[in-house]
């Protein structure tokens, strides 16, 4: 009961936020990022935090522990997370996926030594990527403006509220009473996640001209894709495929968001809505390391 009213409140907040963002948009160059000056400042803070603390620790961690051990740590936390992923699949009306998630948890917990091994993968049970922000997006709630959260990295109003307010609240690690145990687990998880993204981050750093913009746009594209489980309604392909040499001058610079202030109004609400997460996994073509928490690779740090 409390939970459902909390959800209602959250939805209301997100909706309100989205509406407000519509009003606030006019000043900024990018309709999806009206808070750019603040975001850039926080992005810079995260970047420094990463450069001077998290990244060096993650590098030491990677050097100290062999790959199978780190994979075990990743799997252990990933297994815990699968419970909430399943719940979100259920909330999104995807019982089949939810069932797969539950099977993963059961199989990996029992046969994978408490989740240290991902044996369910061999049974053809793929891991899914869900969180409460995606669930809200699925329900048609707009993303609101892009936000960079201190320590947590790229987000949006909707996803930030969902993550800090709901994902965190149901996170089993969060509910551990002993503070020292809880903090240790948090730290291990964050360092392990960051370690998994060291390579991806390097690829991203060498690819981006302006890291802030690059991460933002990758995140927003990625979240939109995730909400539709990798199959978002196709973009106007003919339009974007049209070579700019053609003399169709009236063609708007479709994806040059910075250039087109009016784009937000053209786009249906729930589409503007549906943007979010994950930066660097981007280029990590086959080696797509931790596509999951890739927000990190931006130097934005994702502590989960």
């Amino acid at each position: 009961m409390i939970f459902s009213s909390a959800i209602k409140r959250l939805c209301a907040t997100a909706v309100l936020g989205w509406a407000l963002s519509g009003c606030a948009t006019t000043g900024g160059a990018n309709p999806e990022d009206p808070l750019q000056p603040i975001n850039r400042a926080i992005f810079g803070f995260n970047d420094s935090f990463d450069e001077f603390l998290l990244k060096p620790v993650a590098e030491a961690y990677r050097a100290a522990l062999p790959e199978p051990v780190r994979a075990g740590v990743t799997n252990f936390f990933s297994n815990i997370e699968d419970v909430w992923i399943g719940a979100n699949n259920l909330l999104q009306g995807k019982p089949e996926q939810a069932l797969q998630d539950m099977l993963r948890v059961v199989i990996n917990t029992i046969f994978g030594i408490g989740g240290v091994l991902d044996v369910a993968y061999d049974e053809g049970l793929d891991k899914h990527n869900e969180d409460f922000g995606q669930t809200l997006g699925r329900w048609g709630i707009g993303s609101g403006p892009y936000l960079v959260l201190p320590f947590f990295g790229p987000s949006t109003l909707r996803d930030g509220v969902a993550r800090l307010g709901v994902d965190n609240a149901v996170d089993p690690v969060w509910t551990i009473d002993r503070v020292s145990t809880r903090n240790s687990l948090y730290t291990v998880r964050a360092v392990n996640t960051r370690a998994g993204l060291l390579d991806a981050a390097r690829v991203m750093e060498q690819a981006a001209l302006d890291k802030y913009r690059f991460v933002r746009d990758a995140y927003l594209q990625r979240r939109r894709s995730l909400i539709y489980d990798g199959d978002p309604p196709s973009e106007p392909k003919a339009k974007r495929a049209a070579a700019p040499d053609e003399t169709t001058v009236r063609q708007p610079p479709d994806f040059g968001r910075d250039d087109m202030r009016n784009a937000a109004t053209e786009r249906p609400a729930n589409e503007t809505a549906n943007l979010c997460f994950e930066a660097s996994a981007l280029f990590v073509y086959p080696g797509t390391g931790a596509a999951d928490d890739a927000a990190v690779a931006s130097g934005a740090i994702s502590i989960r």
Partner: protein
Amino acid sequence: MKPLLSLLFAMVSSVVLAQDVAPDVLVKRITAEVIDIIKQDKDIQAGNSKKIADLVEKRILPHFSFARMTQIALAVNWRRATPEQKKQLTEEFKTLLVRTYSNALALYRDQRIDFKPLHMRPDDVDVTVKSEVRQRGKQPVTLHYDMEKTAHGWKVYDVKVGGVSLITNYREDFAGQVRESGIDGLIKSLVSKNRAARSDKS
């Protein structure tokens, strides 16, 4: 006469074949080739960047349309660029993409790549080949190739990883640079980015 004819026919049909390979068949073949090479080459696995760049240059580059990629990434600014600027932009962007691709390829471990069936009509000139990268402990990541039909066969003009389009992302990045410092400014930052990466490597 007859053997000559059949030889001629064989030659013609092999030329036709090279240009007429279906886009999904092409991508599958290149993927398999490249993965095979990586699996057999210990140097590449150890991160020998010269060898990786060589692999990308020889096996992958010929199937990309860099001119098209640059045009799309530049959007409206492409028309505003002089021929000399266009040349520089294409060259520098190509260097950037090759490096990005090489860096990413170096991270390949033991992922499995599954292809989805491609539904295309015979007269299609623009298709998306869809694949999915699977790996233990990770959720699968989609890997889509946007391809166009050219006189020299099908060419890739965009890659989408996990729903993130490479070209769309650069479009934003480039537009911002042009707004701040013009097309020459964009060229300058591409050049210095490429230079920094080169010295980073050595």
